[in-house]
């Protein structure tokens, strides 16, 4: 017995057959049910877990068709157009699905029809029925109004005027119906009867290309999976070549015998179609995931999907048939590291036009940057004048400037005499500066206080180490906040 809280009272939301046999009904108060039968076992409803279970089932249903959509909290739509012959026809497919669900311990009802509406009605009100195209009307006619997927208020008002079955609604003149009950009623009716197309929006985007292999004997070993990936990638290569494209994103679906589905995705920095390289990428990913993937009793269906594609530039090899491409090597290296350690493992700096040192270089994941493209020169922008002596910049910059204690400066606006950083005291031997860098007011949200100006100093301590310090704020300025000192970077 499962209870849920509805309008400040615990009510039964679902119950099993034994509960039904006790004449309990969904919607009944838990207190009443307890009064009738004190020994009933009540569990709090967990919509999140139900949702997860339904998604897991949807994942599993991916093996029959890539177009799987969730229907409310307790249903799934499978668009099996063009898929049935792979499983031996509609009847055989429906039987397979039902029997496999039954073996997994689920009590399911299925209907198969040419329109989603008719299939919905067949599944919920007839059970295990295949509706041929054109028979929708005969199916729907004797069914109650709920089979039309209409809102409860519309249903109640239709019943109040005496239209109690779908057939009665179909027989009624359309114009008064639309006027009185809104367009949605006729829309649902037309969709169920196939007069209007209804699209099932799939849960996952459909991959442009995918290859799969059903296995008579489930596989468990990672090596076997990798080998299979190599074979599937070989099959993909022909398709990709025909389209003149390469894969930018790939996903491997491992369907476990007991219904769980693992989805393993890898991304590439440049279009890829070589089976060996695809296999190596998945090798890294599988190595990284070895602990988290539970093979259980084995995988009986392995599918390799191309999630996104990009145009593939063909390259001519030399006479020996070798293409030496350093960039491709590095891209592949970056992809492998990414597959194993995640997106942030390979980074590259990108220069940004900014005065603020921490903004002047953006560190982005390797795959994001366009390779070897110069930024388009804007015609209305004059190039920044080249300075003969560019300002000195440190070679290492702290991610967050580290606060330092400065007990004394020689002059109020001058460099410190000594400072304390990470609990060690440093004596300043020589200093250069200041270099004043103002905050970027055009980036501040309106109404915000202006960020303090920074005065940067190059400092050499008594040991010859060179640091980059700055003082944030000015002495005796408009704000009463005393200036603070930070260490921002180190020089060579």
């Amino acid at each position: 017995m499962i209870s849920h809280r509805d309008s400040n009272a615990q009510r039964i939301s679902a119950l099993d057959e034994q509960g039904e046999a006790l004449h309990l009904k969904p919607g009944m108060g838990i207190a009443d049910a307890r009064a009738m039968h004190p020994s009933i076992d009540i569990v709090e409803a967990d919509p999140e877990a139900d949702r997860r279970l339904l998604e897991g089932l949807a994942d599993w249903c991916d093996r029959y068709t890539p177009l799987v959509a969730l229907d409310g909290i307790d249903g799934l739509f499978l668009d099996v157009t063009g898929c049935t012959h792979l499983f031996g026809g509609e009847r055989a497919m429906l039987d397979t699905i039902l029997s496999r669900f039954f073996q997994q311990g689920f009590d399911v009802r299925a209907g198969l029809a040419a329109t989603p509406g008719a299939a919905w009605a067949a599944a919920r009100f007839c059970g295990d029925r295949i509706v041929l195209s054109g028979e929708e009307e005969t199916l729907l006619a004797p069914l109650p109004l709920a089979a039309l997927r209409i809102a409860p208020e519309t249903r109640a008002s239709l019943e109040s005027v005496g239209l109690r079955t779908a057939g009665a609604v179909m027989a009624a003149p359309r114009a008064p119906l639309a006027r009185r009950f809104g367009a949605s009623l006729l829309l649902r009716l037309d969709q169920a009867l196939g007069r209007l197309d209804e699209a099932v929006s799939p849960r996952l985007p459909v991959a442009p290309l995918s290859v799969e292999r059903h296995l008579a004997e489930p596989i468990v070993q990672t090596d076997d999976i990798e080998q299979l990936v190599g074979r599937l990638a070989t099959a993909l290569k022909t398709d990709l070549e025909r389209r003149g494209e390469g894969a930018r994103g790939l996903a491997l679906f491992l369907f476990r015998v007991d219904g769980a589905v693992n989805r393993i995705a890898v991304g590439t920095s440049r279009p890829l179609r070589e089976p060996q390289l695809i296999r190596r990428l998945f090798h890294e990913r599988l190595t990284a995931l070895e602990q988290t993937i539970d093979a259980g009793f084995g995988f009986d269906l392995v599918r390799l999907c191309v999630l996104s594609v990009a145009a593939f530039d063909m390259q001519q090899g030399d006479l020996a048939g070798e293409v030496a491409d350093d960039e491709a090597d590095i891209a592949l290296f970056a992809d492998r590291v990414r597959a194993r350690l995640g997106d942030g493992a390979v980074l590259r700096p990108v220069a940004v036009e900014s005065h603020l040192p921490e903004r002047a270089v953006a560190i982005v994941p390797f795959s994001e940057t366009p390779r070897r493209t110069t930024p388009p020169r804007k015609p209305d922008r004059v190039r920044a004048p080249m300075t003969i002596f560019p300002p000195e910049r440190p070679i290492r910059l702290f991610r967050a400037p580290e606060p330092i204690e400065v007990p004394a400066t020689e002059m109020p606006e001058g460099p410190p005499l000594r400072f304390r950083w990470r609990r060690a005291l440093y004596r300043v031997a020589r200093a250069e500066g200041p270099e004043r860098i103002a905050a970027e007011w055009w980036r501040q949200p309106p109404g915000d206080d202006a960020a303090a100006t920074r005065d940067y100093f190059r400092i050499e301590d008594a040991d010859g180490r060179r640091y980059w310090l700055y003082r944030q704020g000015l002495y005796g300025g408009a704000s009463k906040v005393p200036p603070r000192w930070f260490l921002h970077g180190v020089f060579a």
Partner: protein
Amino acid sequence: MAMTAVARETVFALRRQIAKIEGTLPERLQAPAGALVDAGAAADVSGADFPGADLTIVRRGPAAALPDAFLPVGAGRLDAALSGGLPKAALSEIHGQETRDAGAVAGFALSLTSLILKQAQGLPVLWVGTSEIFHEAGFPYARGLHAAFGIEPGQLVFSETSKLTDALWVAEEAARMTALAAVILEIRGNPQRLDLTATRRLHARALAAGRPVLLLRQAAAPEPTAAPVRLIVASAPAAPRATVAGPLAGSIGRPAFTITIGKSRTALPGQFTLEWNPDERVFDERRGDERAGEERRAENPVAVVSLSRGRKDPAAAAGAVLAFPAAGASGSPTTRDQPSRQQRATHLGPRRAG
């Protein structure tokens, strides 16, 4: 005197034996005074004259076949001590004694990278490090690298991993690639995972690919590794900026480094002060007695905390055992090339605890 001569003979023979067995690395040996190279060894031993020293260079194996097996640092005495420069296809260790020396260590490594990039134009450089070191010592700043070492931002690839094992894996995978100009691996301290085996793997891959792997180790004690060369880098006070009217008092000029040879098959322990010229991208050796910084070092009030000593087989302290007098110092051995007492003490004996 006779005892030392016999001891030298023995050491000489042993070194030659080692060179024969290993066969890959060049071995510079100083022939014992008056000793003649016997005829049997002459086939293996090719003599090369170094100015002012009676030196013999033993080169065997592939290293002899490659004329550019070395990266000349550009400072005459250091190159001579390393018998031609840093090995190009090898793992080289660059140590900094404390984490705050990270700027100098990275600066020296990047200067070497800049020298490498002069020959391997346009190839990218991979810098691998753990999050810990990038947090403690700062992330490499592309603008500064471009200004000081001429490395374009597009040539830089970083790899940041949270775990040391992952960093080692990335470095190993990168070391075998010929599409990278150099791999810089930065590690802090003496982790257990970075042992002889791990460094040997890195070294073997660098040898096979013919690309250098620079292992930057911050705040690490010397320990046995497979790297043929270990340099200990500290920053040296910079010379004032040169202007038309002479040096500008109080200004901070080009970066300078104090390099100590911590380990080398060929060199004696020595200390050198190099100055990096960012405009020409070459090293200038500073020969004057700019030792003012050394004396000032004593004033530094920072307590030096001792590193953990829990590891087995700590390396013998560099520079403790001297078999031969310093290279090129005929007659009076200069003390200038030797590590100062204070510097040696930092990685030798037990230190003061903070």
